């Protein structure tokens, strides 16, 4: 078996592995040797494996460009590993040097492999089927028979049969050579070329595109500029001038939660009515934005990716002046939309005020769990807040998240009943209710509930190339996998007054059922009756 395989490989196109040890050579020859190594099939295989391996850490360690919040949480929990991981680029695997190195090497290898194969294929396309080997009987599938017919007659029939099977046929020196399945290699080349196309399209999108998230309270608007985004992830060659001058208002938002059944509380559908303008002086248009139903304007896409509550409050300070009024975005913590948020009132006098706590759309309370939400719709909304007074720390210049309080210089109020309620005062508000803060520091009124939507705005050039590339790649792949290239030879010689016919086939792909086919050819060529095929 082994002996046969090697024989088969020799008959095949030269695809011999390069010698694995470098011969003692001049630099030029050494470079050539190295190039041959890099563009060998084995190297390609090893690089493919490396690529698979290199992709793994990115699925285990949180990634900065996917979820920056999770990265910081992880880093807080693992202070020792963080600097090492950071050096290794483990928080940005797919942009790291080593990951890039693997796929760039693979691409170089691919090009180095592709170009010579293109040349070989071009030649093979135009070449005639190769001459019949001297000993046809040694090929893996060979048959012989003898007949009274003249060799020319048999060969003529063989040509006809083979042609009808879409073989390319030539006759030389008393033998017919035939070959079929040229498109297999074309398909394979097309596939490998399309890998390059997809990669270029993908890289283009990564470099020049951007993706940003913005939370907009219903009733408010958004215009596409950097300062408006809550988070923004630009490609490394992105420039802010690339932002389309898009703007829109979120007019209304609808969400339907399941009110019964085992999945009660799960959202069934949600969508937002928006009015948008593609440029500041374009006519406004309306659009119904929903999950799986994005808005697309001039290559920029707007997606509805989430929603939540923004309770509206009015805060008065110690002087009785309104120090803050309006909706505050609270972030949902669970599927019942218990939402966490903070209210900062830097303008309050004499002391700045801060509130931290939960918004509960359908209020529930147990001693064990404390306040919680029973259902995601605002059936019985309530705010449960811990008020603070002092200094919010906004003047230090350091950036502060709008979703957390810097409590270094803030003091909570003492609880009225520390035994039962804990040491810190907590206030509960329902819509329309006002609570006075201790010591005449001011008051807070819960005016009502509004909703917000989280929108993702993104622009990824090169999308069409990537998609077109994959689709063409699959077509090429199918050609490469399912077209079975064959060579067939038929030789007829006169011996002892009879015509001895030898027939042999060679499968040039790696999964053929050649025997059956050769048998079939044998039957058709051996019959004296004109075959109708």
């Amino acid at each position, binding site marked *: *078996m082994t*002996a*046969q*395989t*090697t024989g088969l490989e020799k008959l095949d196109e030269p*695809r011999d*592995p390069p010698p694995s040890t470098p011969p003692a050579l001049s630099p030029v020859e050494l470079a050539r040797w190295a190039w041959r190594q890099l563009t060998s*099939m*084995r190297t*390609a*295989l090893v690089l*493919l494996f490396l690529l*698979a391996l290199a*992709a*793994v850490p*990115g*699925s285990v360690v949180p*990634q900065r*460009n*996917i979820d920056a919040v999770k990265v910081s949480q992880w880093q807080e929990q693992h202070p020792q590993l963080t600097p090492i991981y950071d050096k290794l680029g483990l928080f940005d695997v*797919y942009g790291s040097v080593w990951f890039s190195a693997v796929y760039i090497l693979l691409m170089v290898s691919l090009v180095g492999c592709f170009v010579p194969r293109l040349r070989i294929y071009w030649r093979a396309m135009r070449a005639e089927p190769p001459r019949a080997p001297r000993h046809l009987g040694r090929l*893996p*599938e060979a048959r012989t028979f003898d007949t009274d017919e003249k060799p020319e007659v048999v060969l003529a029939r063989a040509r006809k049969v083979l042609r009808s099977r879409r073989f390319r046929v030539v006759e030389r020196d008393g033998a017919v050579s035939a070959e079929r399945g040229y498109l297999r290699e074309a398909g394979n080349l097309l596939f490998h070329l399309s890998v390059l196309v*997809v990669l270029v399209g*993908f890289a283009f999108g990564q470099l020049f595109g951007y*993706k940003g998230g913005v939370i907009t309270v219903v009733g408010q608007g958004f215009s596409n500029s950097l300062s408006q985004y809550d988070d923004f992830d630009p490609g490394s060659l992105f420039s802010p001038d690339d932002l389309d001058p898009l703007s829109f208002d979120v007019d209304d938002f609808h969400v339907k939660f*399941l009110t019964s*059944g*085992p*999945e009660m509380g*799960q*959202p*069934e*559908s*949600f969508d937002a009515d928006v009015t948008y303008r593609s440029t500041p002086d374009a006519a406004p248009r309306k659009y119904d934005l929903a*999950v*799986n*139903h*994005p808005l697309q304007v001039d290559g920029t*896409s707007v*997606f509805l*990716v989430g929603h939540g509550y923004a309770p509206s409050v009015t805060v008065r300070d110690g002087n009785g002046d309104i120090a803050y009024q309006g909706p505050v975005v609270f972030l949902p913590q669970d599927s019942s939309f218990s939402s966490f948020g903070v209210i900062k009132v830097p303008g309050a006098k004499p002391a700045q005020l801060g509130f931290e706590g939960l918004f509960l759309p359908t209020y529930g309370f147990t001693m064990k769990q404390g306040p919680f939400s029973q259902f995601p719709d605002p059936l019985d909304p309530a705010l449960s807040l811990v008020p603070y007074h002092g200094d919010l720390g906004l003047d230090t210049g350091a950036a502060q998240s709008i979703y957390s309080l810097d409590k270094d210089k803030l003091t909570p109020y003492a609880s009225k009943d520390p035994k039962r309620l804990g040491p810190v005062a907590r206030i509960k508000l329902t819509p329309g209710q006002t609570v006075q803060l201790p010591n005449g520091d001011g008051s807070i009124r819960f005016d009502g509930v509004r909703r917000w939507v989280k929108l*993702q*705005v*993104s622009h*990824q050039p090169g*999308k069409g190339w*990537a*998609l077109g590339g*994959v689709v063409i*790649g*699959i077509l090429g*792949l*199918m050609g490469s*996998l399912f077209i079975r290239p064959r060579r067939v030879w038929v030789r007829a010689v006169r011996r002892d007054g009879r015509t001895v016919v030898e027939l042999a086939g060679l499968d040039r792909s*790696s*999964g053929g*059922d050649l*025997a*059956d086919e050769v048998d079939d050819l044998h039957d058709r060529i051996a019959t004296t009756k004109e075959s109708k095929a």
Partner: protein
Amino acid sequence: MTTADFAAFSNHAVMFASIVYVLAFLSFVMEWAVARKTPATVSVTATAPAAERELVAATAELSGGEGVSTPAAPDNSADQDHELRVEKWGRIGVALMVLACGLHFLGLVTRGLGADPVRVPWGNMYEFTLAGTFGVSVMFLLLMRRYELRWMGVLVSGFLVVVLMLDVLVLYVPAGPLVPALHSYWLVIHVAAAVVASGAFAVGALASLLYLVKNRATERGTLRENGYLSRLPELTVLDRVAYRVHAFGFPIWTFAALVAGPIWAEYAWGSYWNWDPKEVWAFITWVIYAAYLHARATAGWKGRLAATIALIGFASLLFNFVGINYFFGGGSMHSYAGN
């Protein structure tokens, strides 16, 4: 029928399907138990010269599992009788597999009809597993016809019984509606293609596994005369069958993971590729199978190395299916599949 009726019907159909799979498994076990008593015809060809062996191997692939459906000139009528009994049990096994697969299909369809509103039956782990095992079952039956894979029946039916059992016992949740991100016909296409490809890869993995086991036994000389292994097709045939099944699955997987998936992601999350763990592992799986095809096409790396790579590919496929939902939890945007 009302929605609740459909849901209940689905549960019954899945139960009956499992029972029939058990019966199919038992028939295949019987097939092999009876076969053990007959000397395998392979042992005859094992001593034949190389060229002849290749020929036998190649024809065996076309005409049926080695020695199972082609009793190669048994020397006495007792042997012939035995072969007939082997054949009978094998055919009963296949018939039961077809029946079980039909019930499985009914269970899957009524699961979709049993949800309000009606939807595709793949919205949570229970349903994914139900659909995935259905994919394995269908792909096995289809490929069996094409490549004569009946010798695998005992392993495939055993695998299906175990996985379906776990699915019903561990993963079951009552039928309910989909989360909004799953409302997309691209999801239907994406999952359907992934299920078909996974089914093919599962069958391919089994063939590769058997190749490795038989190869090892051959090398160590521990191949028992009439054991299961020696009745399997020749090594070259096993290798070729594995290749063909993988070659069938690979373009479909490419479509599922790199076309339908990204298009759906584009609609649902606003970006066609997010390096989400599920996507990363689909990509890793794809790359490993590409490496398999390369290994298969490289002289000298065929056979054992290629088979090993195929198994690694399948392991990564399984990990993506099960592991991501359990180990990565909320870290994956796909994790709602695990609710």
